[in-house]
């Protein structure tokens, strides 16, 4: 492993040590023995997966942050159904949080709780959609690049290098400003600037897995390349990819909030970042306006990052070893 490879992994902040060799206990010899041994292997793999999830869910940090995240997701998805109208201005203006208005009201007399709940919808939807798109694109391009090498690989390396050097937010800012800024455009731009991060990890893992014995046996058994990639390589390359995708949710929410804070986003459906943008002018008069949306972003991103971290620990147990 070269130093640059190491640092590019460290870049993601999570892949601290060697990636786990999940499934490498597979003995190529037993594959040739026929169908019964395949059954054995399958149960063995399932048992390993069980232990990973057991390990993951048994940690107090996981439980805490999973509850926090689920709570925030439920509040943002179901909350707006029960909260009042986020644009109705028939409340008193700039009232601090009270029993009647748990998060106060804003300068136009809108119920801030409703606004924050509706804002969460947008922020979370952006975060999860972008992460999903990044994972999909990353798996396709990174998988093909790592498995086949050649021109796809060369192009991917260059593109990844490009986005490693040029901060994506600057490009996103320009693109969003020039192309207009509705939900679809924002999500597309964020996904386009963030997918190489995931693709790089997919590529590295795919390259590693491709050299393992069971891929060779699959080739010897005469399976087509795409079939091997789909059923052997990608599943075994998934652990670090899942971690990276989790982290992407947090990063996407952060970048979106930054763009929205600068006034780039759907003005009719303000996300948490957009709420902060309008709150800046009223910081002295209404502290709650700037506090709550930011706190929501913080809680969600922290939960996502913590879950990604502990997922990484469970999937990569080698890190736990202390010399």
């Amino acid at each position, binding site marked *: 492993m*070269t*130093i*640059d*490879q*190491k*640092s*590019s992994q*460290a*870049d993601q*902040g999570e892949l*601290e*040590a060697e990636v786990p060799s999940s499934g490498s206990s597979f003995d190529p010899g037993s594959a040739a023995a026929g169908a019964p041994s395949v059954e054995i292997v399958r149960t063995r793999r399932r048992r390993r997966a069980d232990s990973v999830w057991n390990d993951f869910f048994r940690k107090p940090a996981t439980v805490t942050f999973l509850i926090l995240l689920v709570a925030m997701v439920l509040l943002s998805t179901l909350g707006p159904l029960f909260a009042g109208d986020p644009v109705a201005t028939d409340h008193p203006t700039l009232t601090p949080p009270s029993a009647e208005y748990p998060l106060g009201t804003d300068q136009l007399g809108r119920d801030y709780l409703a606004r924050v709940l509706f804002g969460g919808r947008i922020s979370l939807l952006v975060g999860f959609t972008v992460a999903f798109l990044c994972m999909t694109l990353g798996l396709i391009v990174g998988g093909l690049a790592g498995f086949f090498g050649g021109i796809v690989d060369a192009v991917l*390396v260059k593109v*990844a290098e*490009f986005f*490693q*050097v*040029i*901060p994506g*937010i*600057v*490009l996103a*800012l*320009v*693109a969003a*400003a*020039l*192309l*207009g800024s509705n939900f679809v455009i924002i999500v597309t731009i964020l996904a386009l600037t963030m997918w190489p991060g995931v693709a790089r990890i997919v*590529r*590295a893992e795919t390259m590693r897995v491709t050299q393992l014995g069971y891929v060779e046996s699959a080739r010897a058994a005469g399976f087509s390349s795409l079939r091997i990639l789909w059923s052997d390589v990608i599943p075994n390359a998934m652990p670090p990819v899942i971690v990276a995708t989790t982290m992407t949710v*947090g990063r996407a929410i*952060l970048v979106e*909030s*930054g763009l929205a*804070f*600068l*006034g*780039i986003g759907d003005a009719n459906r303000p996300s948490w*970042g957009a709420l*902060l943008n309008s*709150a*800046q002018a009223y*910081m*002295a008069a209404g*502290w709650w306006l*700037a*506090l709550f*949306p*930011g706190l929501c*972003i*913080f809680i969600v*991103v*922290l939960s*996502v*990052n*913590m879950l990604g*971290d502990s997922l990484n620990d469970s999937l990569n147990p080698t890190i736990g070893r*202390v*010399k």
Partner: protein
Amino acid sequence: MRSAVLHYAKLLLSSVVLLLVVITILFLLLELAPGDPVQTLVGDIPVSDAFRAQITASFGLDKPLLERYLIYVGNVFTGNLGFSFGTDEPVIDLIFSRIGNTLALALPAFVISTTGAIILGSIAARTRKRWLDGLISGTAVAIFSIPNFWLGLMLIMLFSITLGWLPTQGKSSYGQSGIQLQYLILPVLTLASSELAFKTRIMRSSMIEALGGDYIDTARSKGLSPRRVLWQHGLPNALLPMVTVAGYSLGFIFAGSVLVERVFGWPGMGLLFIDAIERQNNMVVLGVVIVITVTILIVNILTDVVYGLVDPRLRARFARPVRSVA
């Protein structure tokens, strides 16, 4: 020696290619953007087609796309970034009048976050799995999860509005020129925070890896104090990945300063950028992105040079590319 020259020539070439790609992407985005610049200039007054054609020709907009692109690229490489829409000031002058203010934020933030991360990350690695490590690592993740600009807002609320210790906006009090220290504190802290957190995590893992090396066992068995083992034997090796990360981080500090300058009303390049975007002053937008890109590329090359200097192993086998593909 020749391979070293070849290596840096390649690096320079790939940097120029990267810059070209950035310019091309931006140029195409501008072409894709809705709106007609000539119409904007003319306004709502009805004009004859001949007059419209005259304006179009005076800006060279009647030429084909490829020709305009080549002219623009040629101008960029000779230091001409065009003129600001409305005021007709050269974009390059506008940027140079602001870049000093941005550097006044970015450089201290860079120094604080890098040195802080080296110290905190090493301590966390040394006290691994104990409370101090837990505190440092936990705080790092937390700070990394805070939206940078919101942290700035909260700091303003606490230190400026509630306590009244520090000013809220600008770089100096009214009528004063230059930069005053008390105006610098909050923006620099805000800008440094997330980079500090990020680099601390990197430093911690790279130090843990360095401390796992055999030479650490040797140093310990020689009877060296744990402190000397950490700082004299562990640190130099743990610093290597940090060089790359620090190089990249300068780019992200530049990008982050856009948000921070907006929060603190800091008249730097970022604020110029935001103003330009809001007023659709496209030449300025392009110019700022190009200047940021060039700065980042130069830092990148410097990083590579430093890398070669601090790691003798890389100097010895220069035939292999230092920046090997990931």
